[in-house]
């Protein structure tokens, strides 16, 4: 009975969204405040209905109601509570329900923004509801989460053990917040095309939405990569797998948009470009969602599919991407840009180059992701494109961006002369040369290691110098520690923090890619071996019982310079319900690197096959991503302060 209520509320949300769209189309021409209020209430109602529906599905997972198809296929009564809950979105149907829940919440959030011009807000809410309606139709007609089974199983089949992990429990929601957040900037763009008006306020109002979805995307991607690193057991963290690319492309476009919107906000130029990027950003999100959901490209994430879904997906894509692009082609010429002049050496040029490179980089990733599909469709040849392709295309395109990134903050807007520029370039070159030289003296260093490490250092120096220049320019004396934060919040350091994140990230890549050491061999209890300067001793081997698995666990003691550092306990787990095995790597994370041990097959006669790695600076990769996301979040809040101040002034 309870699941049916969930289903009914989902249908109600669908019906209500159709009514709103009809009402919206009818009232677009002669908008009044009443119509806007009605639409706002409709948005709230959709959001509540979907929330009820989603809660009921979660409840069904929590109480293990195996009369529901997706619960019996993806859950088990013995599973820990966290994974029962995360099981709700660990499958195709539930994850789509989460998608629409986030979409309707975002729409509700936008509807609460009072600063947005009424005409624009009306269009935004209409477009958002249209997207919602399409997705609800998709769920109801092809992927109903509340489908019952005729014969109720006593026990569920369980969730894929690899997915039973805290990192992965939060990876999809984060990623979806990022994807769906981009729908808001998409609707802003479509709204601007419909109303035919664009101004600096528009740019100011769209920017926080880009910041927040960019941050969420960054975190979501980082969580996924972190999970791959510790769960898949071979120490890699990014595989250029099609599904990873699917989440990475919207991120690249969002990054470009985050930068170009600054020019628009400041100078009111590149209007069309920003609108196009906003549309593209969400298009890539849709592509990302559907690449994963359609089984078009295969990977860890793909679920079983049926052809009716594919057709439906195609229809949604055509309406929500093709429609706005046609609108763009017809109406983008109405935006008149002021005649603004700027120097070759100016922030405008720098941001323009940033955008050019980011979109080109996106194109190379897109080609690498889709080329195997096209080749298969055209000639039937099956190929795969691995990391080597991306190292040869993506990396060289990113290099100039990093170089520019350190310098661009010192450039002025428009035609102003940059005072510090020469000094800064001299400083950067000098320090980077020293860094390059020291890198070249490290054992096992290669030319690429030197380039990558030096870029990281170059950026690091650039970011720090920019920070101090900013502090100096405020001309305020720092008297108390507490007031530092006040100044910092005044000058806005979101950008600095995000760029610092990139520098840390690059340092992490340098360490992990170029200075990794590996050990593999067969060891028995009592044996010892070295990895780098670390001594590992095989202490014991035991079998244990977990909540829903059996485990074989080895214990290693790690010593460095004859000092005890810690224990490493790699496991092999067997999940009887799912009849599958997982390898749990043991990782001892340190500031300078991770010691990573994987347990292989074996017995106490011939020993066990052991693989161990030392991954220098690897945790910097995710710390870097965390700083980037934090930077995005800071700029979200800084922006809030700025707009509030403006309102108070006027």
């Amino acid at each position: 009975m309870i699941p049916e209520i969930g289903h009914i509320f989902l249908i109600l949300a669908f019906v209500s969204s159709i009514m709103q769209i009809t009402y919206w189309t009818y009232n677009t021409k002669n908008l009044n405040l009443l119509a806007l209020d009605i639409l706002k209430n409709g948005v709230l109602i959709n959001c509540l209905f979907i929330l009820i529906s989603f809660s009921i599905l979660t409840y069904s997972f929590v109480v293990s109601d195996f009369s529901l198809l997706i619960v019996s296929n993806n859950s088990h009564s013995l599973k820990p509570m966290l994974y029962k809950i995360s099981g709700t979105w660990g499958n195709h149907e539930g994850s789509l329900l989460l998608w629409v829940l986030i979409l309707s919440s975002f729409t509700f959030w936008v509807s609460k923004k009072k600063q947005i011009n009424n005409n624009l807000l009306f269009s935004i809410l209409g477009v958002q509801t249209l997207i919602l309606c399409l997705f609800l139709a998709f769920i109801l007609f092809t992927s109903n989460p509340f489908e019952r089974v005729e014969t109720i199983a006593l026990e569920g089949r369980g969730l894929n053990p690899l997915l039973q992990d805290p990192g992965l429990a939060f990876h999809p929601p984060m990623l979806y917040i990022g994807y769906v957040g981009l729908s808001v900037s998409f609707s802003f763009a479509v709204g601007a095309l419909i109303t035919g008006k664009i101004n600096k306020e528009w740019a100011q109002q769209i920017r926080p939405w880009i910041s927040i979805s960019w941050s969420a995307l960054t975190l979501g991607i980082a969580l996924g990569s972190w999970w791959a690193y510790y769960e898949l057991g071979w120490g890699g963290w990014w595989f250029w797998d099609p599904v990873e690319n699917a989440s990475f492309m919207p991120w690249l476009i969002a990054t470009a948009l985050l930068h170009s919107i600054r020019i628009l906000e400041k100078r009111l130029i590149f209007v069309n470009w920003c609108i196009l990027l906003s549309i593209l950003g969400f298009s890539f999100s849709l592509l990302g969602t559907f690449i994963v959901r359609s089984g078009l490209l295969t990977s860890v994430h793909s679920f079983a599919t049926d052809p009716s879904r594919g057709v439906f997906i195609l229809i949604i894509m055509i309406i929500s991407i093709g429609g706005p692009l046609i609108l763009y082609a017809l109406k983008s010429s109405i935006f008149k840009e002021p005649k603004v002049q700027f120097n070759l050496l100016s922030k405008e040029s720098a941001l323009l180059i940033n955008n050019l490179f980011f979109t080109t980089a996106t194109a190379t990733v897109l080609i690498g992701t889709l080329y195997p599909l096209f080749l298969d469709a055209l000639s039937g040849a099956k190929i795969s494109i691995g990391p080597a392709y991306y190292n040869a295309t993506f990396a060289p395109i990113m290099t100039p961006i990093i170089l520019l990134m350190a310098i661009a903050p010192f450039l002025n807007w428009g035609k102003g002369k940059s005072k510090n520029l020469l000094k800064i370039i001299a400083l950067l070159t000098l320090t980077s040369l020293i860094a390059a030289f020291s890198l070249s003296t490290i054992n096992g260093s290669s030319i690429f290691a030197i380039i990558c490490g030096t870029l990281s250092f170059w950026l690091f120096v650039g970011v720090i110098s920019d920070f101090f220049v900013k502090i100096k320019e405020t001309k305020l004396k720092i008297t108390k520690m507490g007031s530092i934060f006040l100044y910092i919040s005044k000058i806005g350091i979101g950008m600095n923090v995000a760029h610092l994140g990139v520098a840390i990230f690059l340092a992490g890549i340098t360490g992990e890619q170029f200075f990794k050491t590996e050990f593999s061999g067969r060891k028995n209890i009592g044996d010892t071996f070295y990895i780098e300067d670390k001594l590992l001793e095989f202490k014991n081997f035991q079998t244990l019982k977990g909540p829903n698995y059996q485990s074989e666990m080895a214990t290693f003691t790690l010593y460095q310079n004859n000092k005890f550092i810690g224990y490493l306990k790699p496991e092999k787990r067997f999940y009887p319900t799912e009849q599958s095995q997982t390898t749990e790597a043991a990782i001892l994370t340190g500031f300078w690197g991770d010691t990573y041990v994987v347990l292989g097959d074996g017995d106490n006669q011939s020993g066990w096959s052991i693989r161990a790695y030392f991954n220098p600076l690897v945790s910097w990769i995710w710390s870097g991503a965390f700083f980037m996301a934090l930077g995005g979040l800071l700029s979200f809040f800084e922006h809030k302060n700025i707009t509030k101040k403006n309102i108070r002034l006027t």
Partner: protein
Amino acid sequence: MNPKYRRLFIIILIVFTIALATQLVLIALRDNIIYFFTPNELKIKYGDNENIKRKIRVGGLVLENSVVKNNDIVNFTITDNKNEILVVFNGQLPDLFREGQGIVAEGNFKDNKLIATQVLAKHDENYMPPEVADALKKNGAWKGDKDK
């Protein structure tokens, strides 16, 4: 810079970047594509005693009773029920590797053996790599979808 020169500058920049990127992509595609074969396709295309210089992928089912582990080196045979290929792999096999399972091995083909650098079995016990499924369907060795 006045708008006219600015436009010129922008266009030159765009053309240059795109040309550069295209060049990079073409070179990368030429050098880094990995072709996929089933054992039968490989035999037909390259015969018995040819060494293929570039990396390839071979997919099929792991033949029952063919897995021989010798310390860290694993030997096994991939079959598409028409032809077979011996694979030699030094490394950690994925958790879902077992006999009868569809897998993909990547590596260099030398002396009638595939010296694999990577063995891929996807993370789902009922999952069959689509290339393998397609290939098996084509030569009739497909036993239909197992229950999902």
